[in-house]
């Protein structure tokens, strides 16, 4: 058990390297089995994880550059645990759903590399290590979008890569500066996050550093107005790319907010609360509107992700256990739901090679099963109670209500607008009469697609009905984070604020 984390991180890498020698026909099977083993490993991790302990578990440390305080430092806590499981699970599912024939070998290997970077991001406790995985994750995605995408795939891939890379450039400076601050404070170099949690920074420094980190995370999330790479990436990416991008990669940004921005710069976070909240609100509504205007099913879902990420951001910046726990749960649920939705779009795209709503209509008649599953996931997407979508959304908004009811009302209108574009999408493509000739003969879901989709649907219901075990585990670590914030807060206002948002009652 000591080295399970590094095993989880590097198993896909090793397997991927082995993948080079496996022949074309079997490589997909290989990929699936590897992903499955990886998934099992993450489940083992969950089982072995002690939910009553809020700290980092299975910690591994080995110095890389002691002189410079860089170390190979892994650890898992309630916040990262389920994101790791999400990554492994979605990778598995997307591989199962995979039906690309072209250069399948490279694709599978790339996906495995991607999985490594994703898991690595969530497990690193060393800032440099985190940065390494953070940047590395771009490379496989660049390849996936650029090589297997459609239409302007290269433009989309380069845009995605450059945008996110440039976004995180400033973060590097921030990291190094913070490291230097730590050096000044303690006389030794360290980039270990737990060490940094002990470091109390002056307010102005916090502001600057918060800004530097914010840009990187905001681009990744992506927050308005840094979101324009997303529609292109999703629009051009192959199904598997979209799934992993929406399900896991977007979560890196929000995860980083919880892991770094809040506990490292509590005062700055509170100081910037309203600007961020307003941006998030704009995201929610603006993205929902743009989604409503789309003609391409995939684009609708792409923009809907932006909208949902807005709610996640709100939940995070509620800075109370309800909100943050909710937002993390919403990350999971959005991962599952959006992943599944992209998969469904892929299904129809494989059959008709178009994603335009106008091309469809009356699909419910020709593909009832498909329509049913799509319907379930749509309901999860609009946050219907007893689906996975509700819990996170409810908690996030609930949490932020404590901060400001006005913003919550406005952002809450997302649940209306969400229903608007989703139902419209569903109505346009599934209801009505089958007009197009080529749609009359469409095949319903086949075994492979079922195998990929059923688990997701099951999760949507199960986690919707019984999220408690996950929530409690997350909650433990979230409380710890909040305590860290309270401990580090410099300004009395911050302290007051944190106290207020984490307590019941009082006026308003």
């Amino acid at each position, binding site marked *: 058990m000591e080295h399970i984390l590094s095993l989880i991180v590097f198993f896909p890498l090793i397997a991927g390297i082995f993948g080079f020698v496996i022949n074309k026909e079997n490589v997909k099977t290989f990929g699936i089995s590897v992903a499955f083993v990886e998934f099992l490993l993450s489940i083992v991790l969950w089982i072995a994880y002690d939910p009553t302990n809020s700290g980092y578990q299975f910690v591994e440390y080995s110095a890389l550059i002691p002189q410079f305080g860089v170390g190979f430092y892994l650890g898992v806590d309630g916040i990262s645990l389920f994101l790791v499981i999400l990554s492994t699970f979605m990778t598995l599912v997307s591989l199962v759903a995979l039906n690309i024939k072209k250069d399948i070998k490279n694709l599978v290997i790339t996906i495995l590399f991607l999985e490594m970077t994703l898991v690595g991001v969530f497990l690193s406790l060393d800032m440099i290590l985190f940065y390494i995985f953070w940047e*590395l994750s771009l490379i496989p995605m660049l390849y996936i979008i650029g090589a297997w995408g459609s239409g302007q795939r290269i433009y989309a891939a380069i845009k995605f*890569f450059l945008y996110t890379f440039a976004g995180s450039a400033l973060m590097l400076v921030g990291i*190094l500066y913070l*490291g230097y601050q730590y*050096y000044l404070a303690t006389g030794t170099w360290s980039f270990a996050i737990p060490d940094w949690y002990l470091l109390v920074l002056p307010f102005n420094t916090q502001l600057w550093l918060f800004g530097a980190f914010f840009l990187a995370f905001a681009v990744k999330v992506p927050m308005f107005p840094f979101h324009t790479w997303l529609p292109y990436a999703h629009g051009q990416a192959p199904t598997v790319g979209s799934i992993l991008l929406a399900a896991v990669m977007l979560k890196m940004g929000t995860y980083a907010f919880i892991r770094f921005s809040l506990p490292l710069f509590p005062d700055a976070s509170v100081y910037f609360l309203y600007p961020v909240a307003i941006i998030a609100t704009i995201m929610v509504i603006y993205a929902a509107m743009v989604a409503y205007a789309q003609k391409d099913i995939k684009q609708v879902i792409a923009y809907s992700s932006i909208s949902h990420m807005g709610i996640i951001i709100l939940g995070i910046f509620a800075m109370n256990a309800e909100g943050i726990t909710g937002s993390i749960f919403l990350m999971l649920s959005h991962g599952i739901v959006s992943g599944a939705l992209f998969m469904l779009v892929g299904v129809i795209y494989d059959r008709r090679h178009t994603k335009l709503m106008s091309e469809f209509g009356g699909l419910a008649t020709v593909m009832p099963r498909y329509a049913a599953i799509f319907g379930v996931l749509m309901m999860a997407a609009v946050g219907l109670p007893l689906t996975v979508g509700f819990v996170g959304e409810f908690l996030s908004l609930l949490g932020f209500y404590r901060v400001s009811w006005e913003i919550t009302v406005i952002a809450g209108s997302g649940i209306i607008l969400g229903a608007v574009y989703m139902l419209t999408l569903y109505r346009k493509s599934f209801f009505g009469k089958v007009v197009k000739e080529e749609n009359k003969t469409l095949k319903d879901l086949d075994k492979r697609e079922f195998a990929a989709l059923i688990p997701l649907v099951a999760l949507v219901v199960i986690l919707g009905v019984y999220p408690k075990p996950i929530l409690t585990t997350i909650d433990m670590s979230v409380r710890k984070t909040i305590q860290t914030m309270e401990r580090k807060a410099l300004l009395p206002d911050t302290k007051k604020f944190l106290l207020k948002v984490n307590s019941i009652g009082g006026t308003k």
Partner: protein
Amino acid sequence: MLNPISIKIATLNLATLTPMAILAFGALAIICIDLFTKRLDKSFFVMFTLLFIFLDFTALIGLNGPSRGFFGVMLVDGMSMLAQGIILISSALFIITALSNKPFKEFKKAEYYALFLFMIVGFQFMVATDNLILIFIGLETASLALYTLIALHNRNKAFEAAIKYFTMGALAAGFFAMASLILYALTGSIELGVISKVLVSRGFAPGAFTLAGVVFMLMALGFKLSIVPTHTWTPDVYEGSSAPLAGYMSVVPKIAGLVVAIRFFDIFLSSQIQWVQDILIFLAVLTMTLANITALVQEDVKRMLAFSSIAHAGFVLTAIMVGGTQANSAIFLYWILFMFTNIGAFTMLWIARHKKNLWGSRYQHPFTKFSGMVKVAPMMATLFAIFMFTLAGMPPFSVFWGKLYLISSVINSGHVVLAVIMVINSAIAIYYYMKLIVYMFLKDPITEDGNIYIANSSTPIKTIVGITLFFTVAASIFVQPILSVVTELIKSSGY
């Protein structure tokens, strides 16, 4: 009636000369052997050269600095040893690439190897002294040998490159001489140590002339480091000369130049001369930015790499500006890591060298040449991609660590804005490195025959690639040992 001068050999401490002596001997030996027996194969020459480089290296390790020798002109300190180490290693890596699959005239000539060895001697002298005369001699010896090596490639472009390089070099030499003259006139000495003492004691007055000296020196060294505006030769010379030589040029002359620069500018930076700092910042920013944006629009990989090496030089210049132990060790760390990657990258180009230019006559390695390479030569493409990402400073590959440490040193010295400019530059830079990857991985192949990409490869060259790749990918492990050695040596030599 002059009374005879008597000097005790012991006082000369000739040991300090042995490394250079060995190589010089080797060079002569090659020529002599060539005199006696014609029809020697290049493999012989290469191995022979390698042997002497190895001897030199051992001699170098044998030295224990800091010490002076030969009338005190030789200076053996940590920095010189580091620099010589880098020079020798990259020389070794370089000379092996001569064992290419395709035959090239110059590699059959003994002079080539002799000149090569002389050049190394020159560089070693350059870094192993603080005497302006010796620096000048070393510089010129190396340069003149280098011009000839370029010319020996024996193609029109090679000659053009050589002449351009030579002419500008001559002008730079003039600048260097002028700088030395000014400093000599001001201080009455040509030893950097003494010069520094005198200047400091005099508070650097008269300012204008001191600065004039600085300016001339800056331009003379800038030429070697390819600092804007003296960088214009770089792309042409790289394009004109053979790929490995270009790679060599982007590493060795620069480290030599860097050492001199460190030694020289330390005089002014250690006593906080604002002007020098500002100028260095200005030039560094100018260099990296201009090089980066120009590299964006290149159509030829080699030229692109040339501009990238200019940008890297600009990067390192900032560290010179910062000064101090961390910065200086950052320079060497950066350069060691950069050495492996860059030589690796250029060797890849060397492998992909193909006699008839299937892709238009203007360029030898246009981007289009590599489109869809992953389909026909996946291994090559992957390696190439790794080198590219490394040069771009993509973690966790080698150059990233150098970059990290270097930027950190800049930040620690309080130049946060400069640091921001640097990272933004590296964000711009990633585009042109990625351009090649996009061509290799995302475009469709132009040819079915993957052999054209490995036409020139051979086992020794593959080995080189292997070594460089290893140091590039596994850098995370080597950084600590390298860093500790470097820091230790730099400290010992008092920077």
